């Protein structure tokens, strides 16, 4: 659908119909979208939002792009996600839960899932299973990382879709942005940080507030996990603490699972 009268370099641009959807999550990524009032009207001029439970009353099944937040934990969520996939031309995983399972997937780390359910929900009849990221269930076209996502990044993605420009994320780790912001390195302050292996693009949000990175955006391209582990150990940070961080958002599960297996081999 064309954006009435709007052009980019003289060429008419499309105004895609967009839906925002949520599964198991805190819905904070969607909240980011309505948070930045200064650019909200420009954003709305670029896309036509037809489905956004958190921000509007109406809903429609006619959309081009589906932004999907949250992880999948229940059978009915699988059905709903598949329905969204069948309607959307482009399905975008929005935030760490959708991309990696997010904080929710910490549940999967317990060996006894019935015990977890019993402890959290008591006798209430809540149907909940192993937490899965969206790409475990349907084809995901694009991932927007972060817990929460940065609105600027979502805006950039949407702008690029509208004008047909390539969408690319940094392949390098957070350290690159952290140094450019002239932050004091958290290791200099004696703290732990996953900045050297986590994908940049957040603008070193947490280290800039003197909080070490927990890897919410998942691994950078070809991260040196062996050296990451070694440098943490050299600084007296225990393997359990390293695992705490690697497991928190699920993006590093390949590495954290391997590390846990290695640890249990050493201390059975």
């Amino acid at each position: 659908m064309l954006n009435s009268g709007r052009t980019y370099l003289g060429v008419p641009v499309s105004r895609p119909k967009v839906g925002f959807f949520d599964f198991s999550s805190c819905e904070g990524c969607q909240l980011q979208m309505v948070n930045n009032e200064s650019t909200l009207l420009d954003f709305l001029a670029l896309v036509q939002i037809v489905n956004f439970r958190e921000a509007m009353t109406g809903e429609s099944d006619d959309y081009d792009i589906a932004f999907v937040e949250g992880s999948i934990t229940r059978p009915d969520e699988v059905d709903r996600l598949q329905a969204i996939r069948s309607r959307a031309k482009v399905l975008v995983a929005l935030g760490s839960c959708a991309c990696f399972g997010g904080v929710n997937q910490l549940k999967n780390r317990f060996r006894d899932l019935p015990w977890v359910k019993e402890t959290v929900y008591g006798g209430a009849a809540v149907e909940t299973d192993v937490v899965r990221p969206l790409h475990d269930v349907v084809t995901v076209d694009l991932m927007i990382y972060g817990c929460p996502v940065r609105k600027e990044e979502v805006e950039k993605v949407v702008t690029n879709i509208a004008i047909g420009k390539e969408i690319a994320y940094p392949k390098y780790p957070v350290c690159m942005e952290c140094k450019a912001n002239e932050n004091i390195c958290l290791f200099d302050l004696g703290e732990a940080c996953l900045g050297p292996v986590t994908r940049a693009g957040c603008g070193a949000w947490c280290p800039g507030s003197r909080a070490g990175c927990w890897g919410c955006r998942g691994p950078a391209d070809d991260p040196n996990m062996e050296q990451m582990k070694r440098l943490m150990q050299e600084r007296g940070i225990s393997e359990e603490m390293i695992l705490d961080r690697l497991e928190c958002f699920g993006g590093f599960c390949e590495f954290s699972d391997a590390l846990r297996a290695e640890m249990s081999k050493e201390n059975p």
Partner: protein
Amino acid sequence: MLFKVIAKEELKRLFELLASSHTVVGPVKTGRDRTGLPLYAFDEVERFEDLSLDYAMTKIPAKRFFLPYREDMAVFEMRKDDWNKKVDYNMDRPRIFFGMHPCDINALNRLDKVLMGETYPMPYYIAKRQNTVIIGIDCTPRPYCFCRSMAADTALHGFDMFLTDIGERYFAEILSDTAFNFLRLIKTAEPAGEDHVLYKKAAAARNERFVTQVDTTDLMKILDMEFQSDVWKQWGDKCLSCGTCSNVCPTCYCYSVEATVDLKLTTARKTKMLYSCNLIDFAEVAGAHNFRPERHIRLKYRYYHKHRGFVEAYEESLCVGCGRCGESCLAGITVPEVIASVRSTL
């Protein structure tokens, strides 16, 4: 060469006179590390008391005042059937740099060769370099400084005035009429024989503090011989490819360019961002072919640029031996150790 001696309280007066009408940048204390040592950075300074002229070394070099980490090269305003390009060198008024060590001055001198050279002059850099007055200051070498090995322990040019602390006074070396005119604002004196003695004593005391050395004898040839050496692989296994070495390096100038369009679709920007040859996609080209997908190859080329290619082109290394990269590297990769390992006959 023109010398003066300046009483310490007169330097304070000079700072205050300059700061009242100029943007002054200098070393400031930003905190303490986990061992209690102070951390320093270059920043805008308004009060003389905030200036730490006896600073050890800033974590981040003075580079960002000449080559910002991110900088718009052009802004495009797009109208219906037309567009307009605006170029700004992003230097709206002159700046005074108050207290730069010799290694950092030499770093700028070496950058000048590339960025102010005849082949590809970079106006964004030139605008900042030519509109910055530099007041240098002597340093106390730290254990990891190896600037002497890189012939960067003394600055011979590239500054306006250079101060050496000789106890009660500063011994000032004046290189520009700007600095000469600044000194007319305060009381100075001609150096006497005893000032020369004090200066020579200070220089000798400083010389004794250099402990780290890098043997650069035949280094170009040795690097050529050891291009396939296994040591590169060993260092590459440690490298995090995080780009920190380049970001803290006073002479790394490589950059990437990104074009972005704003949400309104009426403004576009071409933004330059300092990059690092250690980043995974540094040598990635169209079609996603990567000429240097391996960490150790990328790390090796950083050393070949600093210690081989630049030497061949300009007869000095691009490394000034400030030691920042080794100090900031979380994997503990340091220039003296890497070069020693390449030179090793074992």
